[in-house]
């Protein structure tokens, strides 16, 4: 009975008691959600263009952040280190296409998926061999001050992160809709063979997609790294991005954004109001359960392409 009250009455009473605090929690959730979206975006880009479910995206975030920090520790200025890291991520995309994807064309999805898990292991070992495995601080000069809007306390860092996320999504959308390469990418996503037959170079497209998602990983790595330090646990945010993906649909960029926001808010609210009743630390699985409930009603995710099955 006590437990039932704790989960069905107390949270709502608390919400009604202090709506300002509730708004604060919700907005903080939204801002975290943007960060999830950033990681999920990398997944979606690759899945759309090559049908590969890239489990290594989380490690790519870590790898990009490690490279950036490592270069900065060698005394390079921030802007130069960033340019070099972008170069490294593009080189990585080349290597992945040459050494891995090219040989796995036409394999089943699960084989490609396992190959990216292998890639995740490799990159983790590689990154830590190069740059060491202790926790590093990443400071790219984004101010982190508490701001107050109408009684709601926010961190300026989170706001800037959200802003950067929004700019990034907008520029990706323009890239996809307005440029020739973007059109080619969408063509490949729709139908590999048809795209090939009208002369779109599949391999180049793959390199571009992996490079772009490498850059998305770099941005996500900077944001998360500046927030919580660059360390191995950074790669585990990939596991946070998965429910975002299934919620939004694997193939939808807006889905990744909206999904990230829903998960971010839902998770924060559940943790603050329902967490104490069940013993806390529920954010590990809550996102998955939320996504699962959504899936039962929309098996393709919120914005995914409708699954049509034919015999």
């Amino acid at each position, binding site marked *: 009975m006590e437990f039932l009250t704790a989960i069905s009455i107390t949270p709502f009473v608390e919400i009604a008691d202090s709506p300002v605090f509730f708004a604060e929690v919700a907005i903080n959730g939204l801002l975290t959600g943007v960060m999830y979206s950033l990681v999920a975006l990398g997944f979606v880009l690759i899945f759309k263009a090559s049908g590969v479910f890239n489990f290594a995206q989380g490690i790519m975030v870590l790898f990009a952040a490690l490279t950036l920090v490592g270069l900065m520790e060698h005394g390079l200025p921030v802007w130069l280190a960033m340019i070099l890291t972008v170069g490294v991520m593009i080189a990585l995309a080349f290597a992945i296409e040459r050494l891995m994807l090219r040989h796995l064309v036409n394999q089943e999805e*699960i084989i490609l*998926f*396992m190959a990216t898990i292998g890639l995740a292991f*490799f990159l983790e*070992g590689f990154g*830590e061999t190069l740059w060491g495995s202790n926790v590093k601080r990443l400071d790219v000069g984004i101010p982190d001050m508490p701001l107050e809007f109408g009684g709601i306390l926010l961190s300026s860092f989170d706001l800037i992160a959200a802003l950067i996320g929004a700019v990034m999504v907008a520029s990706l959308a323009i890239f996809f809709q307005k440029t020739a390469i973007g059109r080619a990418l969408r063509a490949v996503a729709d139908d590999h063979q048809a795209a090939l037959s009208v002369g779109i170079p599949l391999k180049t497209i793959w390199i571009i997609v992996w490079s772009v998602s490498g850059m998305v990983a770099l941005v996500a790595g900077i944001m998360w790294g500046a927030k919580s330090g660059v360390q191995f646990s950074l790669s585990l945010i990939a596991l946070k991005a*998965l429910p975002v993906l299934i919620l939004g649909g694997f193939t939808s960029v807006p889905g990744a954004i909206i999904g990230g926001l829903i998960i971010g808010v839902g998770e924060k609210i559940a943790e603050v109001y329902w967490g104490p009743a069940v013993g806390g630390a529920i954010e590990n699985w809550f996102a998955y359960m939320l996504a699962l409930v959504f899936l039962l009603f929309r098996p393709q995710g919120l914005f995914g392409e409708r699954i049509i099955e034919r015999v």
Partner: protein
Amino acid sequence: MFYREAGQFKTSYTSDQAIFPIRQDLWFIALVLIFAYVAVPLLMQGADDYMYQAVLIPFLILSLAAIGLNILTGYAGLLSLGTGAFMAVGAYATYKITTAFPGLDIIVVFILAGMVTAGVGIVFGLPSLRIKGFYLAVATLAAQFFILWLFNKVPWFYNYFPSGTITAPPRELLGVLITGPEASAQARYLMVLSFVAVLALLAKNLIRGRIGRQWMAIRDMDIAAEIIGIRLLPNKLLAFAISSFYCGVAGALYVFCYLGSAETEAFDIFLSFNILFMIIIGGLGSILGSFLGAAFITLLPVLLTNAPQFLGFAMRADMQKHIEFMVFGALIILFLIAEPRGLARLWQIAKEKLRRWPFPY
């Protein structure tokens, strides 16, 4: 010449439908079993437990889990990333049952724990009717995280033990101690071996029959399977139940005959991934493949850890760990490129070659 079925005539349907219709296969299995039951304990007489503890016991237990996952993923086509959690359910169920009823025979406890896991598997298999492929895989991750969280948060599961671990109490079979820290490695090995042998044979039989064929039809195309009259829900749930049963028993053995005591961390997502690696590298939809994959994934880290010493150069421990990761990842990718259908496929090719060797006419 040696591996050739010419001249082996079948005069009845029963003999034609035997599990191992080719005599050489039957001999091979018999030899492997004799080797495992007689030769291994004899060879290991007097040696230390390293071989048992680091290689043989984990290999056998993980093979069992791999068979379980292979039934679900390789035969029924339902991708699962929750194997670790199902193993945890088996382990914790065994612990609860055997501490509540200390007199109950440990074999019965293991089987009961497997059944409990099967029940949990059915619950988490329910979404599989509506969602497929990677969506389902992510849904099983929900099981992975939720179950482990539950075992961590609710003290009832570990009997309110302050450190939050479960420890295998000593249990005997035929007067020989087989679980707990005091049990000899040999006794635990034989116990695990017996479970694996019996359950592997059962699985092999199961997938040859009507149920296995229905699963394979569902795997190949579930709508077509539904149209020819295979009921999807009961069959998918059955696949989840049986797969979870195998994983549950494997998890119980993992704690009771291998680790001795465990926390939920022993069953984290990396265990699930490892077992998925085993069935992919071994071969999807193959019982033999489960064993080959388990051998590969268990032996590879052991070899990698010991390799620098053999080659005679020393490395810093953390550096070695990182290089192990790199080699492991690279080898996985290499394997997938070289033979995406796994070691079982290589074995099949070898057998076909062997039929014409050494006189290819």
